[in-house]
């Protein structure tokens, strides 16, 4: 019987051989697909297995991972400051993440190649690897002041504040905002429901108005037109005279360009400073038509408009001066209408460039990234973005913008003891809707610590004075917060 027994033994060997081959085949060939399969719930658990790094600003913790002790979803992402910082932090949903959570995901979750050394040390010391902490440039006082005062207006809007000398973003507010906490739970169904509700909201709380959308900048764009004019001729200054008719004839159209409310602008021949203070339309329309499309567009490009798309590190929507059409279109674009579209961040960069004597610094949000033990991985290195105007032109513009605040449409932005420079704006949008109110400013003018742009959707009753009335006090509170007043 030993013969067939030996063959039976061979059969058993064959069976075990097949089983062993098959488990190897499974690992060598099929495992990658199985691991990537969307039905493999482990992919989903992995997101919650690591203690993600914190996102902080100053002494505020904006996002942190809390150990829930659960086996499946160990760490839950929490946002103690909720709505105020949501457009910056974003959220950490079961299958996706947004904004800073997305832009710095590999560092926050510890998988980045930059954390290789840390991971190796953790491996040897048997410590669980944690993600790196991301510290933002945001000034919590300014951010909170902006959220509070802009929120108090009851309107939708956005504000960006920049440190002119570095480009560090000090505040970035978008209203209405959303609470990232319910979007960062591990329960997919609940998160999807909460997300769908926000996505369907007609007020678009998920939209970061500061960088993800462009608006016509209105009269705030006049500083760019003015810059182009001053750059075109060194002899020009705040006191140079320009024509300021009540109506500017737009060639090849039946329409005329009026001043705001159809009012006269001084005596019809005014200084540049006066034109800016009163935000007259006709002199700027005329200047633009005289200089031509290329001059204005080049100046806009020098401020960073229409160049390479920015990332702060979240991608920023492209601002655009508009295509070359006819003179009438140019006149309108030069006062921030027509196809002229700017993000609030872009307008803040313009204000910051003027404040920083013509040099626009590249805006950024991340101040420092350090591993879980505090070892620095990267830190901000302020970078010149463009040189928009000469120092001389910058001084002249600063002087005129100071006058706007002291004598013009933006007197609500005055801060006792501090020289504030600014420019209001009113941007016509759709027929029958109140125009957007804009304000760009910086302070102190002689040693700028903060430059900002602020936009309130439908925040103006129709003229710059009313827009300034809405926007300037908000800007003032933010500047005061930065300056520690």
């Amino acid at each position: 019987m030993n013969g067939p027994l030996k063959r039976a033994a061979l059969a058993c060997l064959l069976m075990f051989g097949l089983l062993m081959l098959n488990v190897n085949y499974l690992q060598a060939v099929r495992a990658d697909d199985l691991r990537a399969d969307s039905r493999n719930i482990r992919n989903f658990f992995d997101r919650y297995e690591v203690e993600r790094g914190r996102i902080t600003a100053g002494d505020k913790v904006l996002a942190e991972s809390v150990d829930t002790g659960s086996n499946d979803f160990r760490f839950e992402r929490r946002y103690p400051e909720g709505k105020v910082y949501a457009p910056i932090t974003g959220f950490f949903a079961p299958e996706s993440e947004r904004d800073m959570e997305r832009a710095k995901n590999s560092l926050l979750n510890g998988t980045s190649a930059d954390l290789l050394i840390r991971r190796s040390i953790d491996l040897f010391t048997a410590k669980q690897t944690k993600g790196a902490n991301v510290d933002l440039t945001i000034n919590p006082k300014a951010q909170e002041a902006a959220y509070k005062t802009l929120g108090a207006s009851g309107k939708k809007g956005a504000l960006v504040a920049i440190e002119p000398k570095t480009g560090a973003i000090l505040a970035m507010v978008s209203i209405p905002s959303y609470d990232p906490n319910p979007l960062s739970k591990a329960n997919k169904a609940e998160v999807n429901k909460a997300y769908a509700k926000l996505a369907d909201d007609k007020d678009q709380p998920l939209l970061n108005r500061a960088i993800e959308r462009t608006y016509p900048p209105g009269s705030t764009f006049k500083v760019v037109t003015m810059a182009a004019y001053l750059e075109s001729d060194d002899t020009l200054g705040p006191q140079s005279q320009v024509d300021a008719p009540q109506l500017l004839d737009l060639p090849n159209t039946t329409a005329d360009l009026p001043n705001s409310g159809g009012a006269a602008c001084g005596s019809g021949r005014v200084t540049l400073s006066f034109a800016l203070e009163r935000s007259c339309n006709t002199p700027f329309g005329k200047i633009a038509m005289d200089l031509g499309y290329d001059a204005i567009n080049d100046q806009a490009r020098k401020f960073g408009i229409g160049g390479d798309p920015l990332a702060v590190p979240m991608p920023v929507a492209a601002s655009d001066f508009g295509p070359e059409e006819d003179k009438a279109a140019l006149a309108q674009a030069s006062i921030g209408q027509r196809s002229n579209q700017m993000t609030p961040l872009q307008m803040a960069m313009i204000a910051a460039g003027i404040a920083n004597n013509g040099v626009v610094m590249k805006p950024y949000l991340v101040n420092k990234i350090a591993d879980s033990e505090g070892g620095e991985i990267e830190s901000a290195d302020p970078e010149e973005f463009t040189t928009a105007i000469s120092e001389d032109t910058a001084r002249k513009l600063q002087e005129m913008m100071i006058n706007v605040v002291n004598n013009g449409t933006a007197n609500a932005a005055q801060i006792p003891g501090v020289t504030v420079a600014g420019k209001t704006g009113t941007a016509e949008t759709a027929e029958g809707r109140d125009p957007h109110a804009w304000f760009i400013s910086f302070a102190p003018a002689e040693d700028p610590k903060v430059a900002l742009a602020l936009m309130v959707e439908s925040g103006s009753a129709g003229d710059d004075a009313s827009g300034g009335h809405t926007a300037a006090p908000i800007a003032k509170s933010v500047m005061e917060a930065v300056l520690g007043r």
Partner: protein
Amino acid sequence: MSTPSVEPVPLPAKRRLAQLAMLAFAVVIVMFAYANVGLAIDKQIPSGMLTYGLSLGGFMLAAYLVLARFAPWADPLILPLVTLVNGLGLVMIYRLEQAKPPAYGASPNTQLLWTAVGVVLFSVTLIVLRDHRALQRLTYTAGAIGLFLLISPLLPLIGHSENGASIWIKIPGVGQLQPAEFAKLALIVFFAGYLVAKRDVLALAGRRLLFIDLPRARDLGPILIVWGFSLGVLILQKDLGSSLLIFGTFIAMLYIATQRTSWVLIGILLFVGGAILAGMVFDHVYARFEVYLNPEDPKLFARELGGSEQLMQGLFAMAAGGILGTGLGQGHPEKIPLAISDFIFPATGEELGLTGLMALLMVYALLVQRGLRTSIAARDPFSKLLAGGLSFILAWQVFIIVGGVTNLIPLTGLVTPFMSQGGSALLANWILIALLVRMSDAARKPPPQAIQDEGMTQVFQR
């Protein structure tokens, strides 16, 4: 001076000390694994580790002592190998219970208790059954018991069905039992006894057709009866696994007894015919084939009854384990349906990886090899067939269930021997091991030494 030097007959070594050392090694591995689970889940050595380790060590020491006393010549590897697999099963069930939320039904303490009872039955078998050939006298009794146990789940009052399969009986006050596990032992005893008696006629009668020897039509009776019973189990109890297990083992034993390849071919033909028939008639059999061929199909994945989800969850788990595994306590094996029973192999694969699975398969293969070695060394046909049948059924069962959960063959539910949670299988398998140990003792025991210099002895030779 004048006495011729007599070459002492070399005795096979008992290797009792080596066995004790290997047994201790197996228990130490299991204790480390247990500590590993605790450290990974709670960051501390589990408080019960000592009790747990001491109990397992204690049981195995008891089994060892019984073995050393009652079967001293037994193969030294069998007990340590079983201890290792049984212990790893206990660790996996403990680990599945520690998951948050725990895997459904995981109960390591009950399993530890069943292990103890298993060791008791192992000991009792060794003590009571001094000569396994006594079983040969019980051939037809064993056959009757086997059949009764097999059909008992269908009987009123005690029968009980769960998950669509009627494979349970309920005994008031004791709990549930899966009689098929014991039936397979009784049936193997029956097959061995029956085939030893009939092997000559089954082996020799018949005529040659082309290149194979066909048996006579009237000798087809036994194989057809077993085939019919297997189909009955499949149809009435919806238990694909046991049906395949019993039929396959019968064919293997028939082949070992008769040396006739034609039996294997007839068996395979009958099996394939039966499978095709069952596939056409029964949706649940057809569903297994569909799932086997295309487990990734989203439609099959989503199908509630007979879908591929549980198979895929097992494959996901093994893929997650990779080469070295996530480490005990660090994966998510509790997400596999039936992780404590049919799918304990993929659950182990997730945490111990390909490496762990290869080692585990190797341990099973070694165990089977020791059994088959016993069979080859056995001195009488009944022992050879019994040991061969018991070893083969172990290998065959591992092949069916592991092949099923790893998508090598269509999945049919069976327990993974010694690992899956469940008292019946554990007890039956411990008895199986006791029988193998008993037979290996008999096989390795040196024959009584002939007394030399006896003077004139008349030797008769037949």
